[in-house]
């Protein structure tokens, strides 16, 4: 999944149709990096045979797949979606693509980032699991594969919970699952030789129609800098006056 880099300052387009993406640095979604790392680790532990990296989007999505290949994925699938279809591509459509690919590839495990840092939807993993009728281990901070099931420690509000789910299953990665490795130069060179297959949604029988319409995108209300206070005493007095302490 390719998104605007997390360090970029987001600008809303003057016509309020979206945010400026042209000429802006893009990277792999941070949560997806964690998902790739986890898959590669499972392969290194010989718990999975092959890691396939998938990205849906325009031509540039191949760069994201290359990054995953440099991290250790074996091959890539680029599901080509561009133009108007890409603009309206949402989690439901991506889930349909993922579910169709999972069947075609006979995948046993799908690992995704828990959410994309652009649309912040946090839906694709759950929806992919639903469409496949597979169980889901979302917001995972620890995953252990054990035969036909996976034990997943999940991040929930205020702590952790542990579940055991059957495989095949869908997992979504939370921040603490691992620290993604940096792709080393030799691995980047090696990744160039790995194969990326090109697939069209229509080949998978997926209809990309979206029934969500973005009417407009706005800047959030801007905060204005307040005042400088000179002393702690002054600060506490101001907070007391404002009823905050």
């Amino acid at each position, binding site marked *: 999944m390719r998104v605007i880099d*997390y*360090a970029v*300052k*987001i600008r*809303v387009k003057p016509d309020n149709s979206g*945010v400026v993406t042209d000429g802006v640095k893009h990277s792999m979604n941070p949560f997806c990096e964690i998902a790739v790392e986890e898959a590669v680790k499972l392969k290194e532990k010989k718990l999975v045979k092959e890691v396939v990296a998938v990205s849906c989007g325009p031509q540039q999505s191949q760069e994201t797949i290359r990054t995953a290949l440099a991290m250790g994925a074996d091959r890539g699938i680029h599901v080509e979606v561009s133009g108007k279809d890409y603009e309206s591509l*949402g*989690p*439901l459509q991506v*889930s349909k693509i993922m579910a169709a690919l999972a069947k075609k590839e006979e995948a046993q495990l799908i690992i995704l980032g828990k959410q994309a*840092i652009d649309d*912040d939807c*946090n*839906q694709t993993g*759950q*929806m992919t699991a*639903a469409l496949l009728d597979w*169980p*889901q281990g*979302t*917001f995972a901070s620890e995953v252990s594969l054990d035969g036909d099931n996976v034990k997943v420690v*999940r*991040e*929930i*509000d205020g*702590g*952790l*919970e*542990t*579940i*055991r*789910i*059957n495989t095949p299953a869908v997992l979504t990665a939370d*921040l*603490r699952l691992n620290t993604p490795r940096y792709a080393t130069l030799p691995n980047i060179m090696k990744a160039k030789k790995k194969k990326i297959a090109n697939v069209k949604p229509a080949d998978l029988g997926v209809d990309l129609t*979206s*029934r*969500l*319409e*973005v*009417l*407009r*995108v*706005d*800047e*959030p209300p801007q*905060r204005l*800098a*307040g*005042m*400088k*206070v000179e002393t*702690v*005493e002054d*600060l*506490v007095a*101001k*907070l007391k006056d404002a009823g*905050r*302490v």
Partner: protein
Amino acid sequence: QSTLVVAEHNNDKLTPITLNAITAAGKLGGDVSCLVAGTNCAKVVEEISKVQGVKKILVAQHESYKGALPEELTPLILETQKQFSFTHICAGASAFGKNLLPRVAAKLDVAPVSDIIEIKSPDTFVRTIYAGNALSTVKCNEPVKVFTVRGTAFEAASVEGGSAASEEVASTAPTGVSEWLEQNLTKSDRPELTGAKVVVSGGRGLKSGENFKLLYDLADRLNAAVGASRAAVDAGFVPNDMQVGQTGKIVAPELYIAVGISGAIQHLAGMKDSKTIVAINKDPEAPIFQVADYGLVADLFKAVPEMTEALSK
């Protein structure tokens, strides 16, 4: 027009964000029903029956609903939907709601809308994208609107004065593909980060994990949760679940005190909706001062203990 709110609870108590979701549901017009699924939830049904704005409570009790697994709750919600044909299905945008509702939506072949902060009309919602750096107004043309509600954006419904009737609904056959094993809630007397009214956060300026004690002391005075910037997490001072920011937790407390935090974009994204922001930093040029209501240019190692002391009086 009718809305189903999926109640979040632990069989003993209703989770507060459900009350915010009930308020949001009320804004749509039409009747609001609550679904309570659990193993033994009479207490929760009693609690919801008094909540203002709820017309009907649908109760499903079965062992398989233990741990609120989405694999078990989804068929129940689908059955309920078949019977009552709600126009809207919603829940709070908590770990529970975020886990469950997309699964329900996919089964209904509708695109859900996550984490809404405003309802413009029954089919048009406002939600934040890019961690709050932009607001998106979305029109949902699905036959059933499935959405989750950001708790901080809607008042909690009143827990008195309501008179909802309850009825049992048949439980669904267990799917048995998942099993809930255990829950480990962080044992802390401090409130949970995303729900706290006051948050004290530390950054790289704290210099070490041990120095976070200064913040814990201050937090205890204010009944506050303690957070951290990504820089402090990356430096290994504190664990990642304390991270406030675009890749961490999004908070919007009444008072946010940023200590030794420079104010990188990624951090601001996680806290700039706080009602009042205080920044304590020795660098007068730190970007955090551009969003702070009250800025104190000072050495935090002196200022924080002084503040704790001043608040003890």
